[in-house]
């Protein structure tokens, strides 16, 4: 496995630590951090920052009975939370989003498949499966788009993205990602746009049809 060369910018990591990043992006960030030591270190530096703020904030006295109430709860059985660990190429946060199941692939034509992890009016996060040499379909994003490679690789005008690399594109980026020849490319794509895959036209044909 080659080293990860495309990382998450600091402002996005800070927003993730603080919890202000929308859910779909948070899945992509948590997945990348699971694979990337450098971004984990950056995230932990932001947590240190949060801790320093917590330490130096103005304290407000808590109710008198709170401590006793809490201590009485320590022995109560906790309902076990499921812990999702990495499964094959899928990092823990993806496995969690899949609720421990395998991806439910749906064909989009031309050998391209997708498995939607979650979607709402604020955006979506999904897995994409692109055969080698094939263009990644247009995700139809209005703003920020995050694409994390889990298997294979893709390339576009900005560079090559291998396993663990994350491409963070804003709406200004006109790019045509194409899966590199070889293994199919599987990636996690998070966008802030509702799904627009109904009439899929491969990107390569788009200039011809001016869609």
């Amino acid at each position, binding site marked *: 496995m080659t080293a990860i060369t495309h990382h998450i910018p600091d402002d*996005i990591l800070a927003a993730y630590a603080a919890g202000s990043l929308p859910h779909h992006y*948070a899945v992509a960030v948590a997945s990348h951090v699971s694979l990337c030591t450098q971004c984990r270190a950056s995230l932990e530096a*932001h947590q240190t920052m*949060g801790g320093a703020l917590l*330490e130096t904030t103005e304290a407000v006295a808590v109710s008198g009975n*709170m401590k006793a109430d809490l201590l009485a709860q*320590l022995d109560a059985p906790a309902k076990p939370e499921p812990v999702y660990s990495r499964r094959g190429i899928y990092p*823990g946060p993806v496995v969690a989003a899949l609720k421990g199941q395998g991806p439910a692939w749906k064909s989009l034509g031309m050998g391209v498949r997708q498995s939607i992890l979650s979607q709402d009016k604020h955006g979506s996060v999904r897995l994409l499966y692109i055969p080698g040499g094939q263009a990644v379909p247009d995700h139809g994003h209005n703003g920020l788009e995050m694409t994390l490679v889990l298997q294979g690789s893709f390339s576009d005008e900005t560079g090559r993205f291998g396993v663990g690399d994350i491409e963070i594109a804003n709406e200004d980026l006109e790019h045509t990602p194409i899966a590199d020849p070889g293994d199919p490319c599987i990636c996690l794509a998070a966008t802030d746009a509702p799904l627009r895959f109904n009439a899929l036209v491969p990107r390569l044909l788009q200039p011809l049809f001016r869609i």
Partner: protein
Amino acid sequence: MSHNKSEISEQTVLMIAVRDNQDREAFGALFDHFAPRLKGFIMRTGCSAPQAEEIVQDVMLTVWRKASMFDPHRAQVSAWIYQIARNRHIDIVRKESRPVPEELAEDPGAEPDASQILAVEQEAGKLKAALSSLRPEQRDMIEKAYLGELTHQEISDQTGLPLGTIKSRIRLGLERLRHELKGLRE
């Protein structure tokens, strides 16, 4: 004042006692220190006092239950509790489960490395000092960012304003953390 600079901080010692021995007295002392700070911190997001206390209760219970995940070689107690507080706050308010990275577990039976623990604490101490040198409105802005009150776009637009010293601190800390994390992975 700083007579114990070469010793591991009280909070870290308490948290290790909770982690390794389920020490209730140590947990009570951590509660005394952190609960009022957590309450103040959470109320700055506009939470009412009772709502903030409900979250504090939940956070401290999570600290007790997840104590085995605490690793003083990588995180200060306050940093670890900060992230738990943000996660629980969001889970409770938004009623959704926050995506979190895979946990990195310490090697079972690994001997604690006091110099590494101290290095983490010193780095955090420098951060705290940098924070205290900020003007109130600068601190306010940073606090807003780390309390989830700013969008990532707003955070990005703020960079260069009050973040100068702090960003270089984070970068320094980063080198060390990166080294430590590599050690864990190998």
